[in-house]
């Protein structure tokens, strides 16, 4: 449901993303791994339609995000890095605003709001202004915003960053629960997260996909000819990203 072909983004001659091609189908959870500045966020911003690619195409449910941005954006739920939200608004008003912009009405709207609020468990803080919320709740409000319209495609930029272990566990459960019906891309620094929820992983360094890996049947992961035993993904990650950074 997500098809990226030879995506390139240049900033003043510097290629932040340099020819990334990927496809993600329904039921797949793709983990973007990579050092800081590798181009993970920039790639996600292009899929979500925030940045225009310098060249290449990104399609969501068959819709080119540059050619028909509004139709593509309707099918995407996007959590930007840091889960930005309007600090003066209450969590409830914020979600109502998202529902307004997305044109949700009547019974469907009520169901969407109730489902999202229940899924991320923010019922108790709906009346609080977002600036007074803890980091964990803020992130959950951001997630609620992304899943509000039950989109077929989810792009989540570091969804568990800054959460405590319990909250991380909860967000991972949530992603796993939604996975069968959606195509999901998450970026993360946490390798155990990839092992916990992803069905595929792409290691990105210097704007390129240096390895595309899948879990092995007997446990562990395989990236090309590199194998990682269960819990040993870090060695592969370092081997792949260190040589490109040399």
């Amino acid at each position: 449901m997500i098809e990226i072909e030879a995506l390139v983004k240049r900033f003043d001659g510097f290629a932040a993303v340099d020819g990334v091609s990927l496809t993600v189908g329904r039921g797949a959870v793709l983990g973007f791994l990579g050092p800081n500045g590798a181009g993970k966020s920039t790639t996600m911003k292009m899929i979500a339609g925030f940045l225009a690619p310098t060249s290449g195409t990104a399609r969501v449910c068959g819709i080119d995000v540059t050619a028909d941005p509004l139709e593509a954006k309707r099918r995407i739920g996007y959590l930007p890095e840091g889960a930005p939200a309007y600090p003066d608004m209450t969590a409830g008003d914020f979600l109502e605003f998202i529902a307004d912009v997305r044109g949700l009405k009547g019974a469907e709207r009520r169901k969407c709001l109730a489902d999202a609020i229940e899924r991320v468990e923010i019922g108790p803080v709906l009346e609080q202004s977002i600036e007074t919320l803890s980091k964990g709740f803020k992130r959950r409000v951001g997630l609620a915003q992304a899943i509000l319209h039950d989109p077929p495609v989810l792009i989540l930029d570091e969804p568990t960053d800054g959460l405590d272990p319990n909250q991380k566990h909860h967000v991972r459960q949530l992603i796993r629960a939604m996975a069968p019906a959606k195509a999901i891309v998450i970026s993360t620094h946490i390798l155990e997260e990839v092992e916990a929820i992803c069905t595929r992983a792409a290691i990105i360094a210097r704007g390129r996909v240096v390895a595309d890996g899948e879990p092995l049947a007997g446990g562990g992961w395989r990236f090309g000819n590199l194998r990682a035993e269960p819990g040993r993904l870090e060695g592969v990650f370092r081997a792949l990203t260190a040589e490109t950074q040399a």
Partner: protein
Amino acid sequence: MIGFFRHAFVGTCAIFAREFRAYFATPVAYVFIVVFLAVSGLFTFYLGNLFDRGQADLRPFFSFHPWLYLVFMPAISMRLWAEERRSGTLELLMTLPVGLLGAVLGKFLAAWAFAGMALALTFPTWLTVAYLGDPDHGAIIAGYLGSLLMAGSYLAIGACLSAATKNQVVAFIAAVAVGFVFTVAGAPLVLDALSAWAPRVLIDAVASFSFLVRFQAIATGVLDARDLVFFVSFAATWLFANAVLVEIKKSG
């Protein structure tokens, strides 16, 4: 195509409503309105000598509006985009199914509606002259309409410059500076500096941008179609620049 416009409109309405409410989420709106009304009254009755003139019209009231708006409108518009850029919510907003022009329009209309509300609250001045004499109400309505249009022009400048920076104070000062240039474009201060070397055509062109000159007629209640077209197209031009700036600044 109809679907496209309907959806763009849905987003614009939602953004308008959010922005308008955002003014009242903090005490800023109330402080603004109180100070605006106080300064407006001060100008009208003290500097404008509304009573001593012995005429039942609102000319002293309207004639200070360009100066009033020069400072007050940037205070309304400065947060529109600068705040979104600082808090990172611009990325959220621009990945929702809203067209760029729709978002620009929604925000601008919210600021304009707020300014219109502040302007409407000056109605006691109108009641005062209506009580004391027999003013030309048509002229006063025309004055209010012209004033509202001019406020839109100041706001469009401010909204555009707000998209150029993450810093609201910078947005405010830049908007006052640019607003000042257009306010006094027809005044001797500017024209004398040009007349020594510039061709007549250029001088006339610069003078034609002057809010002060254009508003002089409006303050007396004369609404000329040319002035209306000027203010509407002036605001539209700045809003278009606003959209372009948001697009350019996204990657930086």
